[in-house]
């Protein structure tokens, strides 16, 4: 039986509807109740959740960007790509044997807690980093010890000569820390506070939000804004929307979906936003398993190199935002040009496949692994698969499979992948930081690397004398070093254990009422220059 308990009382429904209408009317009221914003304070958003602000524990791009605003390195890479002394007064002085480095430190610099910056503080910082730094291998491999030689000078003793020591000391992880503030954290991390010497002091920290206030006692040019709030939103759509709605003033491109980046770039071209691009220091590349059939045949590796239509792939995968790359060293760095890997040439590729016994009825089966949690990797895999099918479908067939990145990293050294898409950005901008991590080899048998970076990266390729050349290049400087690095790249390209794919340029978009932003030579936004005129 049906019941009508309130039959004849339609006003109840009307009341309910009125209630809903009132609730909806409250929304714009709440919208109007936005906290008032100081126009000289800016909000910059990104997808970068920052777990720790301790330079010893920080390793993500977002953390490095934050550290570059609240800390100062000894040296910095300027917007023109040149090394500039920052907390050092001049370039390092290298002893005749190349094993001792003298660095003079700037006087009159103070930490955010008011204590003076001196040699003891720098020694404290470097020793702390060597002891507990997650990336301590950066200097631990090269620096044997550090000591103060005066109140404002230090000496580094190197394990072996290293020509790019200024670049190494530009790593933001080595930014000095106040020994007073960190006295209880000399051998453990301090994740949520930072006392350094940078133009901003960190006044509030959570992984999702960091508040930066201009440091009144800063030794250099004071920030152009009255402070910054760096916020992390966890998805690309929210970030895109936040900039569109004016909720944030600037947006960093790290981890932003390429579709959103392309849309923002289009808006910037129409003058609706301002866009700045930094030096392209992040590379995407393919690792080839060279010690197992079929890719132990160099003809097939070269054929694959000739089968890569980078221009089209970059267009399809990144809508033209990334740049095609034919070298392991980014072209903005010395030794990055000329790019020695061959350009797309399907005819020549076909000849090589034929020489190896493929094409016309026999197809080379290959398996490409991509990191399933990185959308551009997947898009690349599918696009290349389709392009190969179209252009060289009778010679090669590509199967693609996704795998979560951490799982894939664990299996790289086991030789689990015929072909895998990876990326890399050096911790400091120098060719050594791009070649050594893929070509280094501690133990080899012929052309097969048994132990070392090449084996760990899943290629297992080396050649007799390569490790010695890499070490020698690290000890050289100037033109001899460039010549040697170029030769190493040429020889690597001839053997093709890796296939460089593209370069990723960091970007920032800001609201049109802000001044044009700029990047430094390390690929970080100069946050202190952001300004609403």
């Amino acid at each position, binding site marked *: 039986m049906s019941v009508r308990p309130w039959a004849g009382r339609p006003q109840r429904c009307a009341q309910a509807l009125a209630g809903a209408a009132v609730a909806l009317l409250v929304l714009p009221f709440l919208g109007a109740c936005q906290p008032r914003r100081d126009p000289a304070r800016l909000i910059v958003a990104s997808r970068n959740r920052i*777990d720790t602000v301790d330079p010893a524990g920080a390793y993500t791009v977002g953390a490095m960007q934050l550290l570059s605003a609240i800390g100062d390195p000894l040296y910095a890479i300027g917007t023109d790509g040149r090394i500039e002394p920052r907390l050092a007064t001049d370039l390092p002085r290298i002893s005749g044997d190349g094993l001792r480095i003298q660095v003079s430190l700037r006087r009159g610099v103070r930490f955010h807690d008011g204590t003076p910056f001196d040699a003891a503080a720098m020694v404290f910082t470097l020793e702390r980093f060597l002891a507990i730094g997650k990336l301590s291998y950066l200097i631990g491999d090269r620096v044997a010890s550090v000591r103060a030689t005066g109140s404002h000078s230090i000496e580094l003793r190197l394990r072996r000569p290293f020509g790019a020591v200024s670049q190494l000391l530009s790593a933001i992880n080595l930014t000095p820390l106040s020994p007073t503030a960190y006295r209880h954290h000399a051998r453990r991390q301090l994740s949520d506070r930072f006392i350094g010497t940078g133009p901003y002091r960190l006044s509030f920290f*959570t992984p999702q939000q960091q508040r930066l206030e201009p440091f009144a006692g800063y030794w250099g040019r004071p920030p152009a804004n009255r402070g910054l709030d760096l*916020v992390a939103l966890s998805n690309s759509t929210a970030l895109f929307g936040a900039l569109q709605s004016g*909720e944030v003033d600037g947006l960093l491109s790290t981890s932003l979906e390429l579709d959103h980046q392309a849309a923002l770039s289009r808006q910037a071209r129409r003058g609706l936003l301002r866009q700045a691009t930094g030096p392209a220091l992040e590379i995407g590349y393919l690792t080839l398993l060279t010690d197992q059939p079929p890719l132990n045949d160099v003809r097939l590796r070269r054929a694959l190199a000739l089968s890569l239509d980078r221009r089209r792939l970059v267009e399809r995968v990144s809508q033209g935002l990334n740049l095609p790359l034919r070298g392991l060293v980014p072209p903005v760095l010395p030794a990055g040009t000329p790019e020695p890997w061959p350009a797309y040439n399907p005819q020549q590729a076909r000849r090589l496949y034929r020489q190896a016994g493929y094409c016309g009825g026999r197809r080379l089966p290959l398996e490409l692994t991509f990191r399933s949690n990185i959308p551009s990797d997947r898009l690349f895999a599918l696009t290349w698969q389709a392009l190969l099918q179209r252009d060289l479908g009778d010679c090669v067939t590509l199967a693609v499979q996704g795998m979560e990145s951490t*799982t894939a*990293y664990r299996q790289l050294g086991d030789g689990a992948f015929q072909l895998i898409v990876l990326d890399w950005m050096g911790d400091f901008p120098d060719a050594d930081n791009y070649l050594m991590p893929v070509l280094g080899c501690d133990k080899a048998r012929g052309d097969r690397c048994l132990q070392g970076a090449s084996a760990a990266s899943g290629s297992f390729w080396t050649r007799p004398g390569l490790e010695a050349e890499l070490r020698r290049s690290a000890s050289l400087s100037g033109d001899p070093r460039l010549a040697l690095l170029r030769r190493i790249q040429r020889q690597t390209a001839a053997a093709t254990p890796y296939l460089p794919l593209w370069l990723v340029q960091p970007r920032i978009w800001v609201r049109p009422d802000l001044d044009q932003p700029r990047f430094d030579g390390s690929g970080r936004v100069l946050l202190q220059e952001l300004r609403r005129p």
Partner: protein
Amino acid sequence: MSRSNRLLRYVGARVALAPVMLWLLASLVFLLLRLAPGDPVDALLGTRAPEAARAALRAQLGLDQPLLQQYWRFLIGLLQGDLGTSLTNQQPVRAVIGQTLPASLELGVVALMLAAVLGLAVGFSGIARAESRLDLGARLYGIGTYALPSFWLAMMAQLVFAVWLGWLPVGGRFPPTLLPPSGTGFYLLDSLRDGLLHHHWQNLLGSLRHLLLPAGTLAVLLSGIFANALRLNLRRAMDSDYVEAARSRGLSERRLILRHALPNALLPVLTITGITVASLIGGALLIEVTFSWPGVAARLQEAIAQRDYPLVQGIVVVVAALVVMVTVAVDVLLAWLDPRLEF
């Protein structure tokens, strides 16, 4: 044995079983994490660190010790209330949970309250005019909200109210231009306290503005469950013999519903509420991710990707403990309320 004694014995058994369940769960999580390929060093250092550096970091994080030793340390720590230290930022796991769990609970409680009001109102309206357009609308609402993909609704709400209309923020838990209130970690309560004590009402408004979209979206999604449950159970109750008997005694329809049918119809709704609360304690992952809500579910997802073993274990154990507590509480409440239940 009297019913109250049986009830006490039932509660005692449930409470006594809880630690065993937690131990089993904690052990399972511990084992599964170690069985999964990749470890924190792979997640932290990626592909390029030298093997010596990887080994050093592994030793620093205690991952080079035998599995049994790691498990023993984990269990001893757990018994002492020490959940360990996060591998990614060296913060105590308790502190990380202390920062993220209140966010999830706040979102969950507010969403649940809104969902209950909305869902019960819609469910009730179906009874007001059975088989009418209103009833049809209520049914469609119940099915529709239940079937809607949560991420889609969340993104649409974000697009309309935050991006197009600009009424509410796109994401986050608090305006970046203000400093979050200190205290319990429940920003709504802390902001209310600040407002009452110091007349800082901006904090409360800021909290509300940030809470409204995620909580509203979650509430709409959950309200369908309440609406359907109430509608069906109320309809069943209204058709039952005891209601018919009461009607024949001349009781008004309003009294019939409020005094006779509704209490019985609400019992299954209470069970559903319990299950929903239990699922919300672990956070509503898609809502948290879409609205950048810094809750425990989003943190757990990141911790899994980072292979932050202690943090994953800690979150799972704490959330499981709360879920066990809530389910026991709901079971006991039901047993107490419903004399028909046997235990």
